[in-house]
């Protein structure tokens, strides 16, 4: 290969190669957000409808089915993508959302375990845990961190707006009402689908 290129050309080559490679890697980066946002929004509507009709909050177990379905879809999405390497940013984002999943699922499982222990040990009294609020805050936080990592203020802003709207919604809806679950519809649309569409357009521009 030729070695007679100037210092300026070398720096230009480095910059252009990294920029081109980043554009390739950014292709379809919004698709997982759109996918998960759609799943969250659709699941919240289904749970709300079934909970309202039957009166049982047990339909919340559908979140586990959604997670499994999302995992399968994400695998398909990744498999069908071009052979694009993961960047440090995509690795960090993956870990942020992985920990969100672990915390959300772990917390839910823990609540069930504690409920069973209390039942078995005949411990009386009612303990109220504001699960919707907690998950809303966690999801908003992860979205805002993702936006900062990607250096995309729009994504962070969408997450902040989504979290604020969701918290207001939760506080306005009566405690224990099936309507509370629709907070995830707001989060799905504002924190995932809209930023996903913005990222997708930006990457494919």
């Amino acid at each position, binding site marked *: 290969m030729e070695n007679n290129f100037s*210092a300026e050309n070398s*720096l230009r080559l480095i910059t252009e190669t990294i920029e081109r490679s980043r554009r390739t890697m950014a292709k379809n980066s919004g698709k997982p957000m759109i996918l998960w946002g759609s799943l969250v929004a659709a699941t919240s509507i289904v749970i709300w409808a079934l909970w309202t009709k039957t009166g049982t909050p047990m339909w919340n177990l559908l979140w586990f089915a959604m997670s499994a379905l999302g995992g399968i879809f994400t695998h398909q999405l990744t498999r069908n993508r071009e*052979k694009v390497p993961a960047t440090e940013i995509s690795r960090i984002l993956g870990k942020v959302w992985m920990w969100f999943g672990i915390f959300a699922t772990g917390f839910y499982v823990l609540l069930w375990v504690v409920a069973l222990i209390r039942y078995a040990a005949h411990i009386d009294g009612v303990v109220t845990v504001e699960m919707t609020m907690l998950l809303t805050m966690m999801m908003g936080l992860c979205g805002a961190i993702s936006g900062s990592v990607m250096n995309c203020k729009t994504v962070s802003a969408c997450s902040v707006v989504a979290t604020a709207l969701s918290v207001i919604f939760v506080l306005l809806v009566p405690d224990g009402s099936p309507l509370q679950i629709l907070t995830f519809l707001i989060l799905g649309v504002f924190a995932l689908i809209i930023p996903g569409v913005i990222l997708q357009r930006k990457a494919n521009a």
Partner: protein
Amino acid sequence: MPENGKLFKPLDPLLHSELRLAVMSILLDAGSADFVYLKAETGATSGNLSVQLDKLQQAGYIEVTKGFKGKMPQTVCRITDEGRNAFANYVEALRSYISSGNR
């Protein structure tokens, strides 16, 4: 010569080559990438790319792992700490050339 009177830092001849520099730039950002991706991004021929990757590997700047993804063979290149340091030194040297040229 730079103001401090020292000679210019020598440019690493291994990195001062268009294709090897392009490969290292991609790996610096991505950490690792497979052969097919590097070939597509650099526009190099398979033969030329193989030769340049071999040189970078021999210098300890990258690690090359050959394996399979499903039934397809896959060659993955990963930048090493030595490669990152060499790249940082190379860029620093380039900057010193440019800044002294602008004076």
